[in-house]
């Protein structure tokens, strides 16, 4: 039986307006500021609507807890509004895959009550007790917050490594940016596409530069694991990669693009 194919629609959920580029590309372009979007990906096919990451909640929440981020997140680009324009209600989503549990990737998990959220065991374990530097990034209990990924009504499915979620949708454990980051490989008519989460923030991370074949993200937990992840990704077959925070992802409304 042929493996089902899917399409991938990147969803724009607001942006960081003056983001320090070296936070995306470690040790490169210190002091350079850039626009960087918050993204989700709507994966459709085989009768399924799958959401990869759920994006930030709203500007008030960001301003309150993540005041260093200059962001533009108007209500009209909230995930539910964006899905509504796609003709989808929360109940139409079959399941969610979270690439990792940083707030800007899971802050709307509670908008999809009862839906399964696939995430990695290593990520969950780290998210409940991160180092001080990452408390706010995870909105972890240590800084007095309740992370949305643990909200009542959400239904976490904890994975332990690489796994096929449904035919044509696989996840790969890719630690580095976070201990339990995962990439999502989607089978399309044009071959495999890899939704990379923040393991690859922008295309440049994967394309590399004159000095390095790949550039790790400026936010990371372990660079040694990150390099192992890059080596692992070098061997994963895919046609195109879709980074977690690159405006250029939005150049095409739908992947695969012709």
């Amino acid at each position: 039986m042929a493996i089902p194919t899917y399409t991938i629609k990147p969803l724009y959920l607001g942006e960081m307006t003056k983001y320090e580029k070296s936070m995306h590309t470690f040790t490169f372009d210190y002091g350079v500021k850039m626009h960087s979007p918050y993204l989700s990906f709507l994966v459709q096919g085989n009768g399924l609507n799958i959401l990869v990451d759920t994006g930030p909640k709203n500007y008030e929440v960001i301003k309150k807890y993540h005041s260093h981020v200059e962001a533009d997140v108007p209500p009209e680009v909230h995930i539910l509004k964006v899905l509504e324009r796609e003709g989808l209600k929360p109940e139409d989503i079959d399941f969610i895959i979270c690439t990792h549990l940083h707030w800007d990737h899971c802050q709307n998990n509670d908008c999809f009550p009862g839906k399964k959220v696939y995430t990695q065991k290593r990520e969950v374990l780290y998210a409940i007790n991160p180092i001080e530097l990452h408390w706010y990034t995870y909105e972890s209990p240590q800084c007095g917050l309740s992370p949305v990924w643990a909200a009542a009504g959400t239904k976490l499915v904890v994975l332990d490594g690489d796994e096929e979620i449904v035919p044509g949708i696989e996840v790969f454990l890719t630690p580095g940016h976070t201990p339990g980051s995962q990439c999502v490989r989607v089978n399309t008519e044009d071959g495999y596409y890899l939704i990379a989460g923040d393991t690859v923030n922008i295309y440049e991370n994967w394309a590399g530069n004159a000095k390095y074949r790949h550039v790790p993200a400026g936010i990371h937990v372990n660079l040694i694991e990150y390099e192992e992840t890059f080596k692992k990704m070098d061997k994963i077959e895919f046609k195109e990669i879709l980074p977690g925070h690159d405006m250029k992802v939005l150049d095409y409304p739908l992947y695969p693009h012709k």
Partner: protein
Amino acid sequence: MPKATYRIYPIYLGEIPEHDKSSFTYMVDMGKKTTCPFISFLLLGSNGRKILVDTGPCDAEWAAEYHMPLNIPAGCELTAILKERFQIAPEDLDYLICTHLHWDHSCGNHKFPGKKIYVQKRELEYALDPLPIHRGTYESPQYGVVSSWVKAKDQLELVDGDTEIDDGIRLVLLPGHSDGMQGVLVHTEDGEYLLAGDCINLYENWTGNAKLRHIIGGLHSDVKAYFKTYEKIEALERDEHIRIIPGHDPAVLEHEAYPVPHTPV
């Protein structure tokens, strides 16, 4: 209790004039430029010991080609300073300690032939096969040059973890900035001093800011290990009331020696 006490003399060996401050303070002050002085430390013991901690950078020409432009004023060569300021020749030293094998701490190792150089085993292992982003920093074999620490490789005396190597001299493993970074705990008349190497680049790394108790260095391999190491230093502060001397803070050079003599009231 150690019998010997030591005095710690910082030695200025030039600097990187344009260094991004966030390479000292991870995710803090990105885009802000600062100076990065190179500092070796001479330890003179009441028992007559003469110990050198770190041997500084390569010369400016080599750095311009393989690293970055440096400012090395005339008279900043390590053996010349030891001779003129301290009347110490290389053969007079008892041994050397290298906090880690980054080029700016180990490029003078070969200037002290025959002298033992204490390095952590983990540091050597990592230096031989570092991450791609650290190959230049170690001048590792993959980088296509023969690094200065390799020239003195037969002198390396490997230690594995926390080790008391001498009366009043203890090495402590402090992974984070580099995998096998070690600090030197030095017994002085004023208690224990920690030469923290680049585990603590600036005093600010340790004093922290409004949000963070401590700020780790911007160059590192394992952020989680770095935080564990800071917990270890906190324990040393609590249990032994150590005083910290950072690896690249210009303020370290404001005093000729540590402990700083008390000003008479």
